[in-house]
C-alpha cells in the first residue's frame, strides 16, 4: 500500500493544483512534495533489503488481457523512489526565486511527473510500466516546451518524437513478450521473466527494448536530442530530465532487459559497452570545449550516464552496484550543478563562460557549495561520486581490461572540464558582469545545503546505500544468469 500511496500523493496533488490561482500554488506544491518525502522516508525506515519486493499492491485492471495494476519495491526501486522524493521538493524549492507564468499548471506538471516516475520505478506489470513510461514524458515535454527558452519548440519536439519513437518499439517488444507467456497470457513481471525465448528472437527483442532505454539515457549515438533539450528547458525541467528521468533508462535496462533477454544481452553486451565508452570519451571531450555552462553540464551528464550503462552491461556485481549507487549520486550532483547554473543565470542573465570570472570574491558561500558539488561530480574520494565511479570502473575493468582502461580516462577528462569551468567562472579577474554578483539567498541555500549534505553523507558512509540495493542487484544478476 505504501507504494500506491507514493504514486497517488503527487498524482492527486497534481490534479488539485490547477484549481488554485496565483503564486500561492508553489507553496501547495512544495507541501505536497514534502508530504511525499515523508512517506518515502517512512517507507525506507520500514524497508527490509533482504525481503525482496515489498509494499506490494495488486489490482486487476484490464481483466480481459490479464493486465494488472500492480507495483512494489525492491532495493533498486526503493533507492530511486527515495531519489525522486528527495529531489522533487528541492526542485520546487529551487523555483522560489523565480515566478513562472501559470504557476498552478507549472507545479501540477512537476508533481504529475513525480507520480509517473515513481510509477516507472515500482511497476510490476509490463503494460503498467509502459503506461508510466509514456506518462512521465508528457509533463516534462510541456514544461520544456511551454516555459523553455527561445528555440524551445523545435528542440523539445525533437526530444519528444525521439523518445516516443523509442518507446513504441518497447511497446512492440512488450506485446510480443506478453504473447509468449503461457495460458491466457499475463503481463505480470514474473510471468514475463519466466518467458524463455530462443537466442535469435532475443536478439531483436533486445534491440526493440534497448532502443527505448538508450534514447532515454541517452547512449551514443542516440544522444543528439539531449544537449539542446537540457540547454533550452527551464531549470526545473532540466533538473527533472537529468536528475531523475535519465535514470529511467538505466532502471529499464536493469529491470526490464537483463533478466528478460539474457542471451540477447550476452550477444550485444560488448557492442553496448563499446558505445557507452565512446559516449564517455566523446561527451567529455566536447564538454571541455563548451562556452555555455548549462551545455557543459549536459555533456558531462551524457558522459556519466555512459559509464553507468557500461557498468550495468559489465554484468558484474561491482558494476551494477556502482551504477545503482551512482544513479543516486549523479541525481544529487547534477541537480545541484544545474541549480548553481540557474543562480548564476538569474543574476547575470547569461551562461557564457567568457563573461564570467571572479564570482568567488563576492560570494564565498556559493563558492563552497559549488566546489563541493563539482568535486562530487569529478568523484573525489569522500564525496558521493567516488563510490559509484570506483565500483563502475572496477566492474568495467573486470568485464574487459581495455574498455576499463579507456573508460578510466573519464576521471581525468572529467577533472579537466570541471576544474577548467570552475576556474573560469569563480576565480580570476572580475568581469563587467560579475562585479555586483550577490551571494546565495536563504531560499537558495535551503536547496543547496541538503544536496551538499547528501554529497558528504554518501561519500563517507556509502555502506547504507550499498546494503539497501545489494540483495536486489544480486537477484537480478542471478535471474539473468539462470536463464542464459
Amino acid at each position, binding site marked *: 500500500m505504501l507504494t500506491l500511496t507514493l504514486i497517488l500523493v503527487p498524482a492527486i496533488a497534481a490534479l488539485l493544483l490547477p484549481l488554485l490561482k496565483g503564486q500561492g500554488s508553489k507553496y501547495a506544491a512544495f507541501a505536497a512534495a514534502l508530504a511525499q518525502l515523508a512517506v518515502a522516508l517512512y517507507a525506507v525506515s520500514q524497508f527490509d533489503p533482504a525481503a525482496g519486493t515489498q509494499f506490494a499492491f495488486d489490482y486487476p485492471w484490464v481483466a480481459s488481457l490479464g493486465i494488472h495494476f500492480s507495483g512494489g519495491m525492491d532495493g533498486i526501486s526503493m533507492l530511486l523512489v527515495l531519489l525522486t522524493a528527495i529531489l522533487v521538493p528541492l526542485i520546487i524549492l529551487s523555483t522560489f526565486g523565480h515566478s513562472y507564468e501559470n504557476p498552478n499548471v507549472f507545479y501540477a506538471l512537476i508533481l504529475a511527473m513525480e507520480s509517473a516516475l515513481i510509477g516507472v520505478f515500482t511497476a510490476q506489470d509490463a503494460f503498467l510500466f509502459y503506461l508510466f513510461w509514456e506518462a512521465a514524458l*508528457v509533463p516534462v515535454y510541456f514544461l520544456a516546451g511551454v516555459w523553455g527558452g527561445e528555440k524551445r519548440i523545435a528542440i523539445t519536439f525533437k526530444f519528444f*518524437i525521439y523518445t516516443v519513437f523509442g518507446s513504441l518499439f518497447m511497446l512492440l517488444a512488450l506485446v510480443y513478450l506478453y504473447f509468449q507467456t503461457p495460458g491466457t497470457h499475463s503481463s505480470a513481471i514474473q510471468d514475463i521473466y519466466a518467458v524463455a525465448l530462443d537466442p535469435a528472437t532475443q536478439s531483436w527483442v533486445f534491440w526493440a527494448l534497448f532502443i527505448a532505454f538508450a534514447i532515454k539515457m541517452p547512449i551514443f549515438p542516440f544522444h543528439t536530442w539531449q544537449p539542446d533539450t537540457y540547454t533550452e528547458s527551464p531549470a526545473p525541467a532540466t533538473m527533472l530530465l537529468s536528475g531523475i528521468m535519465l535514470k529511467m533508462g538505466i532502471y529499464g535496462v536493469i529491470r526490464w532487459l537483463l533478466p528478460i533477454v539474457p542471451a540477447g544481452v550476452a550477444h550485444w553486451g560488448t557492442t553496448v559497452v563499446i558505445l557507452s565508452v565512446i559516449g564517455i570519451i566523446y561527451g567529455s571531450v566536447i564538454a571541455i570545449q563548451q562556452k555555455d555552462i548549462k551545455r557543459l553540464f549536459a555533456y558531462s551528464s551524457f558522459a556519466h550516464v555512459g559509464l553507468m550503462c557500461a557498468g550495468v552491461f559489465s554484468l558484474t556485481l561491482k558494476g551494477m552496484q556502482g551504477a545503482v549507487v551512482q544513479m543516486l549520486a549523479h541525481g544529487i550532483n547534477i541537480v545541484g550543478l544545474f541549480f548553481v547554473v540557474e543562480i548564476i543565470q538569474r543574476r547575470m542573465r547569461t551562461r557564457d563562460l567568457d563573461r564570467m570570472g571572479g564570482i568567488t570574491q563576492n560570494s564565498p558561500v556559493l563558492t563552497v557549495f559549488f566546489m563541493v558539488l563539482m568535486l562530487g561530480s569529478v568523484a573525489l574520494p569522500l564525496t558521493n561520486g567516488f563510490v559509484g565511479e570506483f565500483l563502475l570502473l572496477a566492474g568495467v575493468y573486470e568485464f574487459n581490461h581495455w574498455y576499463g582502461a579507456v573508460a578510466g580516462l573519464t576521471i581525468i577528462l572529467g577533472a579537466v572540464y570541471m576544474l577548467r569551468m570552475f576556474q573560469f567562472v569563480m576565480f580570476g579577474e572580475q568581469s563587467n558582469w560579475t562585479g555586483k554578483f550577490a551571494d546565495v539567498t536563504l531560499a537558495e541555500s535551503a536547496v543547496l545545503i541538503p544536496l551538499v549534505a547528501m554529497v558528504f553523507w554518501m561519500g563517507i558512509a556509502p555502506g547504507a546505500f550499498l546494503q539497501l540495493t545489494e540483495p536486489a542487484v544480486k537477484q537480478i544478476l542471478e535471474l539473468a544468469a539462470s536463464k542464459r
Partner: protein
Amino acid sequence: MLSLIILSVSGIAVLFLGFLKSRWILMPAAMLLLLAALLVTCLDWNNAAPYVGGFENMMAVDNISVAFSGIILLSALLIIPLSRYHASQPNAQPAEYYAILLFSLVGALMMVSYENLIMLFVGIEILSISMYILTGSDKDNLRSGEAAIKYFLMGAFATGILLFGVALLYGATGGFSVSVIAGYVQANAGNLPPMLYLGLTLLLVGILFKLSVAPFHFWTPDVYDGAPSVFTAFMSTIVKTAGFAALYKILSASFVDIYDFWWVSLAAMSVLTLVIGNITAVYQSSFKRMLAYSSISHAGYLLLAVTAFNDKSQIAIIFYSLAYALATITAFGVLILVEQTGTDKYDSFNGLAKREPMLALVNTIAMCSLAGMPLTAGFFGKLFIFSSAVERGMVWMLVIAVLMSAVGFYYYFRVIIAMYMRPVNDDGSGIVRAEVEVSGLYKTVLMLTAILTLMLGIMPDIISRLF
C-alpha cells in the same frame, strides 16, 4: 432491428417538421429520435432470438452488429449538435439536412447487419447517396461542389465494381446469402472456380474504396477537405465504422476457409495505407487535411486487425472504431469552432490554450488518443490491434505499424504545439470566443467525447468485457 424502422420514420417526420416556422425544434427532434433508435438498438443486446429467420434471412442481429450499430448511432448523436453552425447558414435547409442524415444511418445500419449481399449493396447505396448530397450541401462553396462531384463519380464507379463482384459471386455459388456462399466455399474447398476469386476481389475493392484504403484512397483528401467539416466528421467516423463492419462480416461469414487467398492482399494494402496515410499527413499545413490523411492511416490500423483475423480482432476493431470515432468527433468539433473566425490551417490554432483552455484541452485529449498515448482510448485500441497482429505472427508488419505510429505522434502534436506553445496570431484569427458564441450543448458534446476517451483509456474493460 426496430431502430431501422424508427430511423426511416423519423427521417420523414423531420422532413415534415421543416414546414414549421420554428426551426429550432429540428435539432432536438432529430436528437431525440436518434436517442430512441440507440436505446432500441441496445435492447437487442444478447437478444437475437426474435429475429432468427425473420426478414426472409435478409438481415440478422447478433452482438457484433449491435455493437457496431451502437457506435454508429452514438457517433451520429454526438455529431448532430456540431452541425449547429452549418444548419444556421443563410440558405441552409436544415430539415432536409437532418432528414438525409437520419436516412443515411439506415444505410449504415443495413451495412452492419446484412445477411444477404443485396442488402449490403442497398445499404452502401443509401449511405453513399446521402453522403454525395451532404458533401455538396454547402452550396455557395465551389470546393464543396467539386468534392461532391468527385465523390459521386468515384463512388458510383466503385459501386459498379462492387455490384459486378456480387454478380460474379452469385454466378459462382448460386446465392446472394452469406450462408449460401459460405456453404459453397466449404463444400468445394480446394476446387473453387476462378469466378469466385474474381468476385471476392471485386467485392473487396468496392468496400475498400469506401474505406479509403490505399491504393483506392485518392478521392479522400479532396472530398474530406471540400465537404463542410461536420460531414467530414460524419464520413470519417460513421462511413468508416459501417464499412469495416461490412468487410469483417463478409470475410468472417463466408470466406474463412480461403483466408490464405485474401490475407496477403489485405496485408499489403494495410501496410501501403499506413505508410501513405501517415507520411502524407506530415506534409499538410491544414488541420482538416491532416485529419483526412489521418483517417486514411487509421483505416490502415483497422485493416491490420482484419488481416490478423483471429479471436482478438473483433474486439480490436470494435474498440478501435469507438476510440477513433470519439477522438475524431472532438477534433472536428474544435475545428468547426476555430474555422468560424480563422481557417482550417494549423496557424489558426495558435495560442488557443490561452483564450479557450477548455477547447485546447479536449483537442489535446483527442490528439493524444489518435496518436495512441496511454490513458486515452486510442492506446488500448492500438494495443488490442497490435495484440491480434502479434498473435497471428505478423511481427514485421507491426514494425511498420509502430514506425508509422511514431510518425503519427509528429503530426498530431503539431496542433498541440500550436495551441499551447505558440503565441496568439497578430490578426486575431482563430480566437474563438470573440465572435462565436458556443452553446452549452456543443460544449457538452466536446466534454463528453473527451471524458469518454479518457474513461476508455483508463477502464478499457467496460467494452472488452462485454464480449
